[in-house]
């Protein structure tokens, strides 16, 4: 039983490790989940299986929400989704899946974006190095 409950929690996130600034990158996500539509019946007892679906997927980059989807019961089981993102600065990508019952799970990935000259593009400004040191 433990393995079955664990099965619904496996998530996958595939994003490129590095990109050039201004490039449009694809991000592939996959969640292992029985998307139970709330319509099927048990063949012996006739009791309806309760509805259990992932209904909200949020994608954040450096803490800012860039993309969101609402899903209903028409999405297939083990839902696969691929979407695009524009690489502007390097940073942390988070994808969060939220269940019908309010259970949430997330995956993280780090994307490093390089300039045309081959330098890293960092999300914070480094004009005043002392100010950063003071902040830390």
């Amino acid at each position, binding site marked *: 039983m433990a393995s079955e409950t664990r099965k619904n929690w496996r998530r996958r996130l595939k994003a490129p490790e590095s990109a050039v600034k201004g490039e449009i990158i694809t991000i592939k996500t996959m969640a292992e989940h029985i998307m139970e539509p709330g319509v099927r*019946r048990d063949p012996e007892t006739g009791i309806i299986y309760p509805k259990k679906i992932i209904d909200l997927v949020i994608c954040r980059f450096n803490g800012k929400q860039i993309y969101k989807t609402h899903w209903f019961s028409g999405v297939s089981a083990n839902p696969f989704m691929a979407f695009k993102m524009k690489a502007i600065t390097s940073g942390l990508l988070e994808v969060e899946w939220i269940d019908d019952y309010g259970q949430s799970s997330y995956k993280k990935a780090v994307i490093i974006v390089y300039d045309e000259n081959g330098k890293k593009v960092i999300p914070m400004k480094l004009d005043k190095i002392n100010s950063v040191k003071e902040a830390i």
Partner: protein
Amino acid sequence: MSLKNNFLTRRVVFNFISGFFCAVSSKVTLADQQVGAPFRDRFQTYRQTFRIEPDPEEAKRIVRNIIKGREVREDLIYLKAPDIAENGNTVPISFAVDCSMEGMDYPTVVHILVLDNPFPEIAKFYFTPESGEANVDIRIRMRTSSDIIAIAEMQDGTVGKTMSFVDVTIGACS
């Protein structure tokens, strides 16, 4: 003195005790339920709709509510779906919105509907200018061979719509 006496009456104490027991018992019953096994819980009637037969008028009503009498552009959104799908449980589709994601020229919401499903709404996608291209691949369920509708609502108020027919050999659900 009178206030102090009124605060802790016998009724108040009984209420507190019974409330505590109710909370504990409900927690225990929820924890006992196994995931994926059929069970009846308190929220089942609230969570479920027992309508299984598709209602084509409802799909039309949903489309009408999204468009709200605006002009429909046909060259805005492109939907890519297979002509024949063998298994209705996973039908891979993808859509792309033809726009530059700058300023007001980006889609706020993209709806996907399948007309003959018992629940015609399938997904809504919310975009921002940071998502560089409105292009998503996803896999859906289809009950019978029917039309797929994709509707894009732009930030400046224009609406685009496309349809494509998919032939399904083995349907999903029930």
